[in-house]
């Protein structure tokens, strides 16, 4: 019998209500070893709430979350040893330097002797903090603190890492560094759940993304799958020699065309459909006798897809 691979993270119909607010409402997905899973949604979508449940800091109203097969509700102690959680705040101590900070968490995760020293050294090198070992953590910049928190999260070499908006507030360079680190961690076989309210931030490193809004999962899949699911919407630009008014009337009766705007002889409009539909549109326009000088179209960016997926679902 072939044993199906056990997902490292599994959410099962997870729900968390705060009174009337349904912060997380029936969310299920799986993340496997080596995957980077992007968890995307606008502010207040319920990302932090579900991640806190996964990190055993909160309890679900119903449903369950499993880490490496262990329930976060019933076996939080077993979950904690294999999960690293990086919250959206720093959590620093006064009068502690970088090395002592990492040392403290290494000890707290039960690392002793050489193993602890090696773990600290490895983490400091990995997060490029080795030059700052003796610096008090109060004096670190935001980027450095972010790296330190990532270091703390990985100090016990957890199989699962849950990162809540790690890129928020970082400068572009720090963002690139972070992306490289995360890719490296995934290559080492960890399952990584990473949240953001900006899709493009994650697009390059995520194998899969889930889009969340108002506590509900709108869609789960790879970026290609999601782009295919969302009907493609293009921005089309058109220029004519003459007959502007007539084309405007013609376009308004045309299926799949929205938001027509005209400046002189230049049209810009939103068209739903893929390349085939656009070719058809152009042919129809030409066959209707308009003298087209220019026709260009641009597929919308990931950000637009995100907006497209989430728009209009507001209850």
């Amino acid at each position: 019998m072939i044993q199906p691979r056990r997902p490292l993270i599994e959410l099962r119909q997870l729900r968390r209500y705060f009174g009337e607010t349904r912060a997380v409402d029936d969310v299920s997905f799986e993340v496997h070893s080596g995957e980077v899973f992007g968890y995307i949604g606008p502010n207040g979508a319920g990302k932090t709430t579900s991640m806190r449940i996964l990190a055993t800091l909160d309890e679900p109203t119903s449903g369950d979350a499993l880490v490496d097969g262990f329930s976060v509700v019933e076996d939080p102690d077993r979950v904690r040893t294999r999960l690293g959680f990086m919250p959206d705040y720093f959590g620093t101590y006064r009068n502690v330097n970088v090395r002592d900070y990492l040392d403290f968490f290494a000890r707290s995760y039960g690392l002793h002797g050489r193993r602890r020293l090696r773990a600290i050294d490895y983490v400091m090198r990995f997060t490029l903090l080795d030059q700052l070992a003796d610096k008090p953590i109060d004096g670190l910049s935001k980027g450095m603190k972010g790296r330190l928190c990532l270091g703390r999260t990985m100090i016990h070499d957890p199989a699962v890492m849950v990162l809540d908006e790690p890129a928020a507030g970082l400068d572009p360079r720090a963002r690139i560094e972070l992306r490289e680190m995360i890719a490296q961690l995934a290559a080492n076989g960890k399952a990584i759940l990473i949240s953001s309210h900006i899709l493009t931030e994650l697009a390059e490193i995520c194998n899969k993304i889930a889009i969340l809004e108002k506590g509900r999962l709108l869609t789960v899949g790879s970026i290609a799958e999601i782009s295919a699911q969302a009907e493609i919407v293009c921005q089309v630009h058109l220029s004519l020699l003459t007959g502007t008014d007539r084309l405007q009337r013609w376009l308004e009766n045309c299926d799949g065309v929205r938001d027509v705007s005209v400046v002189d002889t230049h049209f810009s409009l939103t068209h739903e459909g893929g390349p085939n539909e656009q070719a058809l549109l152009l042919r129809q326009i030409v066959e209707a006798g308009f003298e087209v000088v220019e026709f260009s179209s641009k597929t919308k960016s990931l950000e637009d897809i995100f907006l497209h997926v989430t728009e209009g679902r507001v209850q």
Partner: protein
Amino acid sequence: MSPTDPRTGTRDSVSQSYLTASLLALWLTWRKIERQLERIADRANPILVKETRQALKSRQFISTFLLILAACWIASLGGMAIIGPQIYYAAAGSEMLLAYYAILAFPLTIIVPYSAYRSLATEQEENTYELLSITALSPSQIVNGKLGSAMVQMLIYLSAVSPCIAFTLLLRGVEPLTVAVLLLHTVLGSMGLSMLAILAGAVSRVNYSQILVSVGLVLILTWTFGLAMASAATFVYEGYSTLRERSFWIANLAVLTFYFTTFALAYTAATARLSFASANRSTPLRWAMLIQQACFLGWMAALASAEGGASILATVFASGFILGIYWYLMGTLLTGEWPHLSQRVQRTLPQSTLGRMLFTWFNPGAGTGYLFSVANLTAVVAAGLIVLFSIKPSAAARWPVFNESAAYFLVIGWGYVVAFLGLGRLLINITRRFTYLPLAGCFLLHLVLLMMASGLPLAARLMVSRRQFSSTGSVLEITNPFLTLEPYTSSSAAPTNAPLTTIMVLTAALVVLLLNLRSVVRELQHHRIALPERVVEEEAALHPPQIPAPSNPWEHQ
């Protein structure tokens, strides 16, 4: 290296190699000790290590330490200047000792416990508590770490002042035993206060309660400091005679028993508070309560048998009174537990019939909590009644009467505790159907119930008429336990309406008990459930089953 003298070269080289060898041996020993120390530091509680490092870098700690040193200096110089050259023969030691004691007691009773509280509160304010709580540290490790840091601080302060205190031993009027007892009490007191402070820090999670708790704590600590100073003064001046009394040591032992059992209760409560929700947070607490009760009863029994005669009655009465209040208070908290039993707890429930019979009332839950308080108080009252009816009413003429009212007191008191706890629990049940009610809310609900029951009839009486029901203990005010029980506490005969009161209170108690019974029974019906497959799998991987090797010929088949 000095140039070698050809004549003494050999001797030199011998002594040199001897020196080298002994240095090497010394160095090796040192390395060994160092490695041992390293091993200890490596395995030491992480919080203790971190906080010690932090304290050494913290300006607040260092300045307090320097301040204490300076205070010691000033006290020494000032003392010597005032007392003058006759310091060695005048009996001025007591004054000097008290001055130093004040310098020591201030940090030990105020600063150390308050920093223990702050250190836990700061963790929650700065969000580090959450980071800490998801590490592999257990709640008891967290509490131990905080307690340990408090003790390290205490030791440092102690070492700063102890040379001065040792100096007073050279003066007249100070006995080493007095100093030892004084210091021991102070150190234990400081530890106990730190434990309470940590409990307070663990309990107050939200902002407004934190303010309340920290103000209350400061008040208690300052008050304790005053108390410590006052009792130290009495003790230092009269220590010589007190220390020779047997009753002093016995009382000390009793106080120590109370101290350690309360310490254990606070420790268990703090760890329970820091444990995750599905953990069994109640059973250890219940054991701590049971043990405390047993110790208390043991002392009371010892007291009664040692004194004999009339004091037996007094001890029975006092035990019933104190334990009645004790179980009421504990009951208000125990009935606030969640009736829902997590799967994790259900994995460890007693399994055998005997185990279920003996230990089910230790299971977490509001119903079993009610049962636990009621059962304990019932046992205490039953034992008290047996003692009351078995002692011979011969020693004094008014005894039988007093026996009677003490018995009434125990039974009626029992009825009140059972009824009020049960009613409160029913109210909690109803409230929880509509809204979230935390433990503190349950406690308040019980309190409000008691206040209303005792306050409303009183108010009504005052409004209707002053004369008609002027006698206390009237049946119309039966919902007021204080007024009803008051007449039974004096040594005069029991009130004439005692049987009626007893019947009414007991009926109410039994009705409430019956009303609670359904949900209590439901809680008692939980059975142990199997471990999840994944847990079994991991346990098997972590502890592979060992095939036992035959250790003696009889095991061969």
